[in-house]
């Protein structure tokens, strides 16, 4: 297989938690703790997990909004920590983001044309006419007519705003788009439009996606591969089909058990795990999932499992296998 567009090796981000007065020794929140994955050209990697599992921190590290504590992010074979000047700008052009809420991610004071043109003005030497032409081009890509260019975001519905955000992400020579829950804030009837549009764009342009979400069915639908995160670690990563048909890690199983049925006659899932995600400040010893795990063994509270090849394809970090 060709070398990946983006590869993440041992990615780690620890945040210093507030220290108590007179109490030295910082506590660390291990938001992301040794994460490895790769995204290939034209591929969608889904990242699922509950709040606090580190999926948003991972995306911030990729978007250079946070600096990793350890580990490396390789973009087309080069460590992005070494990038500077023009090469850094090229990375920022190539990696874009679409956020969850299109009501807050678009400036209410800018016209749609200016919102989409902004990255072009910063990153390219295009003439004004060329920029205008490119704006119309990307609007067309996301299925919006050219006459929306002079409008303001408030004149659009949620789905159309999200199209504008996608158009902005596509304006430069984009290779990877981080999609942070891009459909969660939209009406149900509009979600399918956006998902289909994203899939269509990927087929047409060969762009890669990192799709962050918590709705299992949506993530499984759009992703080629899925990584499941729990408390800063990837506990299982595999092809979307393999993961949905045969989840192996007890946490992945629990996520599927908690997924809502698509029909009232779907057999009820037998067990939904109890309890809540523990605080990232006080991580459980051994396997981070063991306090909630229905199949925990003595070893689970002592030794932290590492990712190992699982049946079929992918990897799983669990002492059961």
């Amino acid at each position, binding site marked *: 297989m060709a070398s990946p567009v983006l590869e993440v090796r041992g990615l780690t981000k620890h945040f210093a938690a507030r220290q108590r007065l007179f109490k030295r020794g910082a506590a660390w929140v291990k938001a992301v703790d040794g994460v490895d994955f790769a995204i290939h050209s034209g591929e969608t990697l889904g990242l699922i997990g509950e709040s606090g599992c580190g999926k948003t921190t991972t995306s911030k590290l990729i978007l250079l909004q946070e600096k990793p504590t350890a580990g490396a992010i390789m973009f087309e074979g080069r460590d992005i920590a070494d990038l500077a000047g023009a090469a850094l700008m090229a990375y920022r052009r190539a990696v874009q983001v679409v956020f969850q809420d299109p009501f807050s991610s678009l400036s209410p004071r800018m016209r749609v044309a200016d919102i989409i043109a902004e990255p072009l003005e910063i990153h390219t030497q295009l003439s004004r006419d060329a920029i205008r032409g490119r704006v119309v081009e990307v609007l067309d890509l996301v299925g919006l007519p050219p006459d929306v260019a002079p409008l303001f975001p408030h004149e659009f519905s949620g789905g159309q705003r999200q199209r504008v955000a996608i158009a902005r992400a596509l304006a430069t020579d984009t290779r990877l788009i981080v999609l942070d829950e891009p459909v969660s804030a939209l009406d149900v009837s509009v979600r*399918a439009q956006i998902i289909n549009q994203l899939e269509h764009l990927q087929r047409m342009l060969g762009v890669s996606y990192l799709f962050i979400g918590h709705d299992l069915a949506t993530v*499984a639908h759009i992703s080629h591969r899925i990584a499941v995160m729990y408390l800063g670690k990837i506990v299982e990563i595999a092809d979307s089909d393999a993961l949905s048909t045969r989840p192996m890690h007890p946490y992945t199983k629990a996520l599927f*058990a908690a997924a809502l049925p*698509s029909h009232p006659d779907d057999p009820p899932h037998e067990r*939904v795990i109890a309890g809540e995600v523990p605080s990232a400040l006080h991580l459980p010893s051994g396997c981070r999932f063991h306090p909630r795990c229905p199949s925990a063994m003595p070893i689970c509270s002592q030794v932290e499992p590492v990712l190992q090849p699982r049946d079929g394809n992918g990897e799983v970090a669990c002492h059961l296998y």
Partner: protein
Amino acid sequence: MGGSGRPPNPPTPPGGREVRPPASADVRAPLSKDPHAPILDVANLQTHFSTFGGSRVIKAVDGVSFTLHEGETLGLVGESGSGKTTTCLSIVGLLPKAARIVGGEVIFEGEDLTRKSQRELRRIRGRRIATILQDPMASLNPLFTIFRQVAEPAFFHQQLRGRSLRERVQHLLRAVRIPSPEWRAREYPHQMSGGMRQRIVGAIALAGGPRLVIADEPTTNLDVTIQAQYLDLLKDIQRETGVALIFVTHNLGIVAKMCDRVAVMYAGKIVEQAPVRELFNDPKHPYTRALLGSVPKLGSKDPLYSIPGQPPNPASLPAGCAFHPRCPEAVPRCLTDEPEDFHLGDGSVARCWLLKDGVARP
């Protein structure tokens, strides 16, 4: 409760713990003795918003009818602006100033709630009808302890004090599976996780021993495993108490899991109402079919059906059937005439001209 000086409500019957509130002395229609009578009967409810001094009228709820029996769960499904939340606010009489119920009735246990004064409604809300809203942090007061907030309905509606009040609160917290309730009752909302806060709101809703709970997207802000726990909890509570539930949601998965019957709303009207199995197996209205087809299903990579266009603006609805601009099956009649309710054999009711002659499918 800190012996607060707030006046307790005027004559409410001295409440025993599990005593269902007997009728207060005011004038009310005699309760129907028919055990099959619905708890709630909403008939042709119309709630309009008027803006610009009445020059523009928005028909947020336009002729909504449904009934709900004891122990039954109705799912109210729709997109933003479809009128599902306004329907609920009309039932409990908590409409914003600009909105007014202009027609129809809301019969709850034999009484028409639309004719009640706010004072009478206050005695019903929190006791016989309770609500659970989407954002628990907005429903809880950050300055009061959990105890005070859970105790409030029992304090005002059932006049519990002292030890019996404390016991009642602990009983409620245990019912919603709050671990170590005697401890947790002394804490404040910010000390709880999102799932726990929503369970506290559930405890407050149960405090008055309600016959009807209206839950407006109660799990939207929760993680999937916490959502599953919460939904299971609501089901358990319903089984124990026989409370009737209205579940407002846009998530068809929640409907499949929780509801006995479903009402699909579009542009202020119920376009289809059916038992949950009939709705999923044989959706009658094109909008319902489109909604079901647009939801990704686990294990299927088939392209999703995408409904063209956007939900309509309630201020300027299209003529005829409000769904016709987005409907793949629209016929000329849909552009001009508004469809009426068509009753179909399997208990479904749908508003679509295609169903006129009992034909289920074009």
